[in-house]
Each structure stands twice: as structure tokens, then as C-alpha cells.
């Protein structure tokens, strides 16, 4: 009854292929799940253990007795200023350098040397950047260990990554668009301003924010260049919002966490986890801000 057999029935070979395809899909899925399990565990533990410590009082009070009592206001606002300062220093330099490398730089030895330098710098450990900051700003330029020096050190550390992410965002704009403009007699800058930047700004800005958010959690670079475990800060009135001067030492969340995690006697464990939780939430907030900004700018992107 050969005529009755289904002409669309899969052959043994096709069944074998379909099985392989299914197996591969599950293998990839398993890797994806394996990736998020540790993250969920970490966040879960920190959340459960740190949640009881969280309160308005905890957020807005300054630490006392080396962090064993009181809250985390000083370190929190210190991290805020540190991040903003770092952003102000690194964003213009990094974005402009990225624009130069992707839009202007001819393919020659100098450009290749810059690219090698950028790639190598991105791989340098943060403690080496910390020592560079200490050497360059404090030892050589005779600046105080301070908020400004720590922010500058963080900026140096994040610069190569920002240059790379900016280049990638720019490179995603099709070359056709640029050539169409050049053919119309537009200069390079006119082309960048009217076509390239409007279509890459979402990628550039999210890159910058993500990198700086990551830097906000770094301990090593600021530990050597201006952050202290604890200090007295103004606790009243407007001064509470501007507790640090640019040329003075300061407290920061990462540094605070680093010190309370080991050497504060008689400190409730929930407060340690509370600090970790706040730092985590802070960085998650910045990252979500980046996502929102990306969605908003992406909507205006046009192709």
C-alpha cells in the first residue's frame, strides 16, 4: 500500500535533525538559567537579610560609632556626588574621543596606537588605576586626596570603556547615510551633527550611564584617592545636602561597605546587609534610568 503512505511524513534523517535542534535549544536555555541563578540568590539573600534594617531614618541619618549605629546618609550622598562628578569629567572626553576615532581618524599608525592603548587600558585592574590616580594627581600634581581626585581617578578608569561603547554606537549608523550627506557637499561635522549623532545618541548615553553606574560600586580606586571609612559631616539644614568640599575627603557607599563588612565591633548584621542592599538598589536604579532613557531616545530613532 505504498500509495497510501503520507508523502509529508518525516524521514528518519529529518527526525534526527529535529531531535538535535530540540536538544540544542534546551542546552542553551539551561545556560541562560544557570546565568541568572547566582544573581537571584545574591539579590535574594541581600534583600531578605537587609530589608529589616531599611527605614527612612536609616537612609537619612549619618553613621555613628564607625557605622555601628545610625544610618548611611553621608556615604550615600558621597557616592551620588562622586558618580555625578565622574560623569561630568568622563562623558565629554570619552564621547568626543569616540567620535574622533570613529568619524575622523584616518587608518594610520597613530590611530592604531590609540586603539591599542584604549583596548589595553580597558583591561587594566582597578587597583592599578587607583595607584595611577594616587601617583598622578596626589604625588605628581600635589592635590589632596579628595572627592575631585577620586572622581578623576574613576573617570580615568572608565574612559577606555566609554570610548569603546561610543565607537560601537557610532559604528551602528550605516555608512550609506554618511556617504549620502558627503555627496551633497555636507562637511564631516554637518554629517555628524545632523545624521550620525541623532541616530546614535541613545546608544552613546546608555553606554556612558551603564559604565559609570558600574564605577559607582568600585572600592579600590577611591580607597586610595580620597574616600574614608568614616568622618564627621554636617548633619543639619542645607549643609546636610552638601557635606563635602571638592578638595576634601569624603565617604562613599562602596568604601563604607568595605569597612563595615570587617572591622566594626558590635554592629548588627542587618545593617551591613542593609548597606549592601542600598548600594545594589542605587546601581539598579541608575541602570533602569539608562534603560528608560534608551527607550525614550530609541523612539526618536528613525530606521
Amino acid at each position, binding site marked *: 500500500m505504498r500509495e497510501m503512505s503520507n508523502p509529508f511524513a518525516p524521514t528518519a534523517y529529518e527526525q534526527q535533525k529535529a531531535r538535535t535542534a530540540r536538544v540544542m535549544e534546551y542546552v542553551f536555555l539551561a545556560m541562560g538559567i544557570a546565568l541568572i541563578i547566582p544573581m537571584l540568590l545574591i539579590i535574594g539573600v541581600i534583600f531578605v537579610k537587609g530589608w529589616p534594617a531599611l527605614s527612612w531614618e536609616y537612609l537619612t541619618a549619618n553613621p555613628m560609632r564607625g557605622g555601628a549605629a545610625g544610618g548611611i546618609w553621608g556615604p550615600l550622598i558621597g557616592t551620588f556626588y562622586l558618580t555625578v562628578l565622574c560623569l561630568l569629567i568622563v562623558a565629554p572626553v570619552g564621547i568626543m574621543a569616540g567620535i574622533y576615532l570613529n568619524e575622523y581618524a*584616518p*587608518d594610520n599608525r597613530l590611530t592604531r596606537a590609540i586603539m591599542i592603548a584604549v583596548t589595553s587600558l580597558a583591561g587594566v585592574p582597578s587597583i592599578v588605576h587607583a595607584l595611577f590616580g594616587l601617583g598622578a594627581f596626589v604625588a605628581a600634581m600635589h592635590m589632596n586626596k579628595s572627592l575631585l581626585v577620586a572622581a578623576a581617578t574613576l573617570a580615568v578608569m572608565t574612559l577606555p570603556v566609554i570610548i569603546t561603547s561610543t565607537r560601537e554606537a557610532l559604528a551602528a549608523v550605516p555608512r*550609506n*547615510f554618511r*556617504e*549620502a*550627506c*558627503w*555627496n*551633497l*557637499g*555636507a*562637511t564631516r561635522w*554637518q554629517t555628524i551633527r*545632523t*545624521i550620525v549623532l*541623532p*541616530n546614535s545618541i541613545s546608544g552613546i548615553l546608555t553606554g556612558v550611564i551603564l559604565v559609570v553606574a558600574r564605577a559607582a560600586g568600585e572600592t579600590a580606586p577611591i580607597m586610595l584617592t580620597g574616600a574614608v571609612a568614616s568622618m564627621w559631616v554636617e548633619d543639619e539644614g542645607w549643609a546636610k545636602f552638601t557635606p563635602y568640599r571638592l578638595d576634601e575627603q569624603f565617604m562613599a557607599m562602596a568604601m563604607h561597605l568595605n569597612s563595615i563588612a570587617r572591622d566594626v565591633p558590635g554592629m548588627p548584621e542587618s545593617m551591613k546587609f542593609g548597606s549592601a542592599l542600598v548600594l545594589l538598589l542605587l546601581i539598579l536604579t541608575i541602570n533602569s534610568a539608562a534603560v528608560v532613557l534608551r527607550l525614550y531616545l530609541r523612539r526618536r*530613532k*528613525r*530606521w
Partner: protein
Amino acid sequence: MTPHIEFRNLSVSYGGKRALGGISLTVPRNTILGIVGPANSGKTTLLKTINRTIEFISAAKVEGEVFVDGEEVRAVESVYALRRRIGMVFPLPVGLPMSVYDNVAYAPRRMGIHNKAELDVIVEQCLRDSVLWDEVKDRLDLLGTRLSGGQQQRLTLARALSLSPEILCLDEFSIAIDPVTTMKIEEVLSRLRERMTIVLVTNLTQQARRMADHVAFINASELVEWGETGQMFSAPVKAITGRYLNGEFG
């Protein structure tokens, strides 16, 4: 009278590989030059030497001279001014990621024209000349990138016309366009010839026959021969030219 465009012993190579060798050719003012030849024979490269966009290919090396209006293109005071005098349409349509209106107004705006009424006139005229007006007149705010391939091709043409160039170079403009629209554009080009000199690179030898005053046949990076269209088709000097123009190879 000075020829509008003149190539003198022009050679181009890309990283040592020859793309054009020893081209000498003149294009009189207000004529259409048809350039025909097999793929990869250097036709597009020839166009790029006129407005110096060849310089964006870093491996490209240009020898010999190209004159526009008697002026060597590498000696001009401003390369941007040179490019504004030459409209270019390449075979891959590029709608810029902005509205149809802004696409056409792009170049005039870079020249400092911001008056809405003035721009309206330019945009409408260019879109009419590129036979796109009837299809987009009610939706000029549509994104250029959302148009169909053939429409984007005509949008590219409209953009090239937006600065009233004195030279218009078209590289396979009809590749993505239906035959009826192609005929309409050909009519427009015949009229535009009164205002500009046109260089028309085409794979369709019949299009060259219909449109061009002169035809140049380029094969394997060399200019085989060039002359008046009628003569090229009826009595070419070289046998290979006749065979190509009659569709026997290529």
C-alpha cells in the same frame, strides 16, 4: 568652448589593484554621456573621481586629472562647493532617517536656506522632477527610510537635484524602478539636459541609446572607445563594442 567635464589620462587603483587605466574623455556642456560596460569594469569609480568622494576609500590612489569647467578637481578651493555643484545618485537607494521633506531640504538647509516658503518650492520641484511627488505629496512627513526601494531611489534623485547642480551623475538609477516610472524619469532627464550636463552609467544599453548624446564603452578598467551615440551603435570602431552594445556578451 571648454568641455564641462574632462578626464585626462585618469587611472585609479585600489591598494595596487587597477580599477581604471588611462581614461581620457570629454563631456560637452548640456549633453548626456552614457557610460556602459560590464559589471566591475570601473564605471562607478569614474563617477567618484568627479566629486572626489573617491577619497573616502583610503586605499584608492588616483593618477591623472579630472577637470570640471576647466578646473582640476583636486585644485578647487572648497571640495564641499565642488560636491554641491555635482548631483550624485548611486544604485543603492539611501533614504536618510528623516522625513521625505527633510530629505530633500537637507542640502539646501546646510547651505543656510531656512525660509519655509523657499524650501517648500525646492522640495516640490525636486520631487516632481524625480517623479515622486504624486506618491508622497500627502505624506511629506513620512520617514524616508519607510519608502519602498524604488521610491527611495527617486528620493535620492530628488536630493541630488535639490541644489540645482550643474552636473548630474546617475549610476544605474533605474535598477529598482519599474519601467513606466523609468520612462517618466527619462523624459525629465531629457528636459533637465537644458540646465545640466548628465553622466548616465547604465547596464541597459537601450537606455543609453535612447538618452545619450555620446556613449563611452568601458571594459576591464579601460575605455575601449567612445563617440556619438548613433555612430557607436551603428558603426563602432572596435568589434567588441558592437558585440557588447548588441547584447552579445556582458
